[in-house]
């Protein structure tokens, strides 16, 4: 028999982030705990990526929906803030999927977030041609978690999922 926790995780693995629809909520590392209270009652603990992430309500709704469809009756989705989410929790398969989708994945080591003034993260590889001859156009991109880069070799503009 399949472990009930694994079963729940296999359901959660099919829920995608509404803003980056190639990543599942497991890939993003926002599911922090699955608590089985009894056969029909479970609690899913999630954490927001950024404080103002507008996707959290949608994600919470989708978790409830997916679990209801799988026969669970009472589902509680709770939020935790600590420890604070970091891009270090993103799965390797998630990073691969991001790259294929055209978004440069976060580089390892979120401790490098604090940069000097006018310093930008360098060596961000272009998801189109893999060149590292790129530069930052803006630290703030189409969503809070991304910054905007440009490739100097193929001239494509691309999003970089910044370290956090």
């Amino acid at each position, binding site marked *: 028999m399949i472990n009930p926790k694994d079963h729940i995780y296999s359901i959660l693995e099919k829920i995608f982030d509404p803003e980056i629809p190639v990543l599942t909520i497991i890939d993003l590392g926002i599911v922090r705990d699955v608590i089985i209270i009894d056969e029909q009652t479970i609690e899913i603990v999630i954490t*927001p990526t950024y404080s103002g992430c*507008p996707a959290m309500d949608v994600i919470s709704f989708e978790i409830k929906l997916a679990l209801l469809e799988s026969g669970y009756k009472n589902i509680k989705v709770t939020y935790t803030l600590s420890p*604070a989410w970091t891009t270090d929790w993103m799965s390797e398969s998630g990073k691969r999927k991001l790259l294929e989708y055209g978004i440069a994945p976060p580089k390892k080591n979120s401790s490098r977030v604090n940069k000097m003034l006018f310093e930008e993260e360098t060596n961000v590889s272009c998801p189109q041609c893999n060149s590292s001859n790129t530069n930052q156009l803006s630290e703030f991109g189409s969503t809070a978690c991304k910054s*905007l880069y440009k490739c100097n070799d193929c001239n494509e503009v691309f999003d970089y999922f910044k370290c956090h």
Partner: protein
Amino acid sequence: MINQKTINATLHLADTTLILAQKNSEWCAHGPILEQDIAITNITLDLIGQSRMFYQYAAELINEVENKNETEDTLAYFRSEREFKNFLIAELPNGDWAQTILRQFFFSCFHQLLFEKLQHIEDKQISAIAVKSLKEINYHVKWSSEWVIRLGDGTLESHSRMVKAIEILWPYTGEFFNAEENDLIEVKKIKSNWIQKIEAVFFEANLLIPGNVFMQTGGKQGIHTEHLGYILTEMQSLQRAYPGLEW
């Protein structure tokens, strides 16, 4: 044990971030260039997120102590001007881009120092919010510092606009360090660090900190400028007309 002090302090943190976000959001679709329009609105979104976390926590505490049914929404939409405890600087008009940048810079530098202290206080929820928010605030400080330097050390026009912005905003920075009974940390202790941060960036930007000027106070006590009433009227109008309305 929950006390009124924690509730008041949490509401002050929530109110300041909400009102500043509400002002900054006026730039949405009006920024000087697209990338910076996106930057200021991203920062605004962070502030709203932080504000929500504080309001949610305040509601939880109030409901426990007073047996009420507050939510983040009732606290944001159904409190009146005198009940808002935001810093006055948050409610001032945006002015031009220089003034908006300078306010964000003054506030973000203070915010960073404050939250670095708050992350170590005993209250677990406030410290968790502080740790989470700091990651965002570090970006705000970097972005606004760079803009202060760009404008201050830019053209004659941008420099003179920064000088004017300093004249307008500086009298509202004293309030950051006015000790009050609800404070969670000793705010006076972070003042010299704040001045140092401002001085370092102003040095690069060719700008000067004004000499002794009269400092405005009142926001933390609920005594506001004439601007807050208009902000609340607009922000709360939908919920006041249709209480409890949801999307």
